């Protein structure tokens, strides 16, 4: 058993040596002719404007929180899945205990409760990418201190279209000054 883990360790060492030996070899051999232009951040040929380390709205913040919940759930489900067969068959460590159905129902309840959580988050609209064409926009029932949600692309486009129509109508209403 421990011999197997020793093999894993050796394998890890071989992998690390491979990676870092390649990096070392390349760093010894490769030329170093750095120019000022080469050190610039690439922005498709334009002059770089500012850095990238700015405050930035990562859209999937709630999604990441939901992920943590489910990752913990899965960590609990691993032992359950591992013993389920033995518990139901009444063999191994579960012999003669008669806990098969109890284990099954318990696991089901656990998964269903978290499934309800998923449905709640889903209905609340937190699984939606904010700027999406489809799906209902979530409207909070209580006034919140946060800024209003970003309008959907479709709404913005409808509004712009309406403005353009109005401008066109205004232009056609006023008689054009004749050249003659």
């Amino acid at each position: 058993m421990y011999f197997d883990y020793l093999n894993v360790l050796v394998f890890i060492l071989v992998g690390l040596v491979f990676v870092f030996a390649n990096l070392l070899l390349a760093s010894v051999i490769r030329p170093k002719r750095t120019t000022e232009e080469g050190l610039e951040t690439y922005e498709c040929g334009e002059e770089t404007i500012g850095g990238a380390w700015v405050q930035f709205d990562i859209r999937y913040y709630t999604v990441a929180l939901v992920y943590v919940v489910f990752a913990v759930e899965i960590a609990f489900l691993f032992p359950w899945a591992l013993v389920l067969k033995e518990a139901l068959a009444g063999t191994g460590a579960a012999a003669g205990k008669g806990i098969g159905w109890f284990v099954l129902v318990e696991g089901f309840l656990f998964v269903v409760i978290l499934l309800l959580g998923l449905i709640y988050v889903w209905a609340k609209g937190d699984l939606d990418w904010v700027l999406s064409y489809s799906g209902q926009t979530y409207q909070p029932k209580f006034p919140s201190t946060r800024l209003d949600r970003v309008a959907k692309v479709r709404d913005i486009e409808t509004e712009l279209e309406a403005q353009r129509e109005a401008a066109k109508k205004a232009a056609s209403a006023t008689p054009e000054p004749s050249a003659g």
Partner: protein
Amino acid sequence: MEVPLPLIWLVKIVVIFGGLVSTAALMSLAERKVSAWMQYRIGPNRVGPFGLLQPLADGVKFIFKEELIPAGANKFMFRLAPALSAAPAMLTMAVIPIGGTVVLGEYSIPLSIADVDIGVLFLLAFSGLSIYGVILGGWASNSKYSLLGGLRASAQMISYELTLILTILAVVALEGTLNLRTISENQQHVGEWNIWTQPLAFVLFTITMFAETNRHPFDFAECEPELVGGFHTEYSAMRFALYFLGEYCAMTVLSCLNATLFLGGPSVPFWPEAPWFVGIAAFCLKAGFFLFLFLWVRWSLPRMRFDQLMRLGWKVFLPLALANLLITGGFIAFGAH
């Protein structure tokens, strides 16, 4: 002559590691070949017979290339990130059994590097580590494209990792073990392959492989029309090569895992007593099919949109995978009584 046991194990480690790295290198050639066959997009493929030495030539070129590190970057993280991405992807191969047991004189040698009871957990833990390389590389570059690519990669990985693990859990519940060797030995006959009892899990796992390795049609982390190169926009030379090696290694390992979990690993259909080298050939064929699938899909399907990807992951795959686990539990209960 007496051959010491540790030497045999060392040879095995080197052979399996070399096989993995050469598979990854040859995949870069296969990618060009398949793109040439399917879309008439011919890449560099002239070195050696059938272009087989092209990966080697590429490697030499990568070593001799000048490396550019942007002036604004976090130098330490920038240098470290590719290694962080490549190394864990390679190490996951340690627990995958590529064949049965070889009897060599007085020794019987199992054809996997480690035969550990926590095989599945080890693999998931290490494959989860490679995302750090991607997100750190994206952040450390201090470039907007890289940052967006890194963030996309992490959003995508966490969304699809749940499905990946839940489908594996269904197989684990069915087999009652986390040991990958036991799982593959339980599928000696073609009728015992888990693909028959877990068809939904097989389909979900196969699609999730693409998302987990950031491959087409889910390659938002490096999608060219939007993000130039995504998280590796600023990378060049050897460090760029390491990112690619890591990606191809992850593809190879997931293909091997898919073959082990669902297609019986080294089992040969209708020939359960096949000698060990036929078993290895069967395993390579099965894994090779999935590797070809990666390329086949890449040159056939258009790229999705990012909100479609998130919707697919959270609103379709996750409920399906959870339901699959519950149904599997029910079936085990009915099978036992």
